[in-house]
C-alpha cells in the first residue's frame, strides 16, 4: 500500500531567499508556535564541496508522531524521529531535501522529497517548490484493518503541515528581504 502525493508551490521570492528561509524554518523560535509539531532539529553532519559549490547536510528532526492514539499505544512513544538529507547546488541553484522517518519504520515509511529551483519564467525572482510525499504502510496482519485509517490521517496531517510550512516560509522570506534591503548587519 503506497500513497503518493505531489504538490507544487511558487514562491514569489528569489531562490537565494527561499532556500535561506528553508534552513531557518524549524530552528526559528518565532515559528515554534506555528510548527508546533516540530520538537527538535539537530545537524548531524555537513560537508561542503568547495570546488563544485555543493553543500551536503544531514539533520535529525523530531516531531510529534502523526499517528492516532492506538498507534502510539502500540509503539509506546509519541515522538517520531526523522532524518533529513539536503543537497544544495550553488552553481545550478537547486536545493533538494529528502526526509524519511526512522522511528515507526516497522509500521510506516514516509518519504518526502522537496526540491527548490528557480522558476523558468522568472528565474531571478521566483522559486518553484516541488514536493512529493510517499507513504507506505507495512502490511502487518494485525495492522491491516487500521492501516487505511492511519494512512488517511498521515496524509491529512502532511497536507495541513505543508500549508503551515508555507506560511512560515513566506514570513521568513519577507523578513530576510526586508533585512537585505535595509539595515544589513
Amino acid at each position, binding site marked *: 500500500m503506497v500513497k503518493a502525493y505531489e504538490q507544487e508551490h511558487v514562491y514569489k521570492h528569489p531562490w*537565494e531567499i527561499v532556500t*535561506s528561509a528553508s534552513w531557518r524554518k524549524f530552528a526559528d523560535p518565532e515559528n515554534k508556535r506555528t510548527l508546533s509539531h516540530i520538537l527538535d532539529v539537530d*545537524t548531524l553532519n555537513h560537508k561542503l564541496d568547495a570546488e563544485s*559549490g555543493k553543500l551536503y547536510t544531514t539533520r535529525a528532526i523530531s516531531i510529534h508522531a502523526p499517528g492516532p492514539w492506538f498507534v502510539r499505544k502500540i509503539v509506546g512513544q509519541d515522538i517520531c524521529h526523522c532524518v533529513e538529507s539536503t543537497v544544495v547546488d550553488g552553481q545550478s541553484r537547486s536545493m533538494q531535501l529528502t526526509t524519511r522517518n526512522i522511528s515507526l519504520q*516497522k509500521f510506516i515509511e514516509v518519504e518526502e522529497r522537496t526540491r527548490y529551483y528557480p522558476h523558468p519564467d522568472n528565474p531571478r525572482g521566483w522559486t518553484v517548490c516541488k514536493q512529493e510525499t510517499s507513504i507506505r504502510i507495512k502490511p502487518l496482519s494485525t495492522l491491516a484493518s487500521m492501516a487505511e485509517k492511519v494512512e488517511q490521517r498521515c496524509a491529512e496531517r502532511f497536507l495541513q503541515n505543508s500549508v503551515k510550512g508555507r506560511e512560515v516560509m513566506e514570513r521568513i522570506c519577507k523578513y530576510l528581504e526586508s533585512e537585505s534591503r535595509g539595515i544589513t548587519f
Partner: protein
Amino acid sequence: MGIIGEKKPKSSSSSSSPSSASHCADLRAAYHNCFNKWYSEKFVKGQWQKEECVAEWQKYRACLSEHLKDKHLSRFLEAEGLDSTTGADPAGVADGAETNPSN
C-alpha cells in the same frame, strides 16, 4: 507483540521531556545562527570556497556525540549508516563523525 524493540532508556516516563534536548541547545543555536548567516550572505552569492563556522560546529558536534544516547540520536546514526538509498548523503554520518572540516 514484540514490537517495542527499540532500545529505550529505562525511565518510566514515556513522554520524553524537553530536558533531553536542552544539553546542547546553546551550542546548537550558536552554530545554526552562524550557518544561516554564512548561507544567506556567502554561499548563495557564490562564495563557497571557504568553510565557516568551524569552531561553532566542532563544539556543537562534540556536545552531540556526548549526549547521543539521551537524544536518541544513535538511532539516526545507525539508520544513516545502514541505508544509503537516497544518495543524498555521501558524507555518511556514521563514519563522518570525526571528520571535521579543516580550517
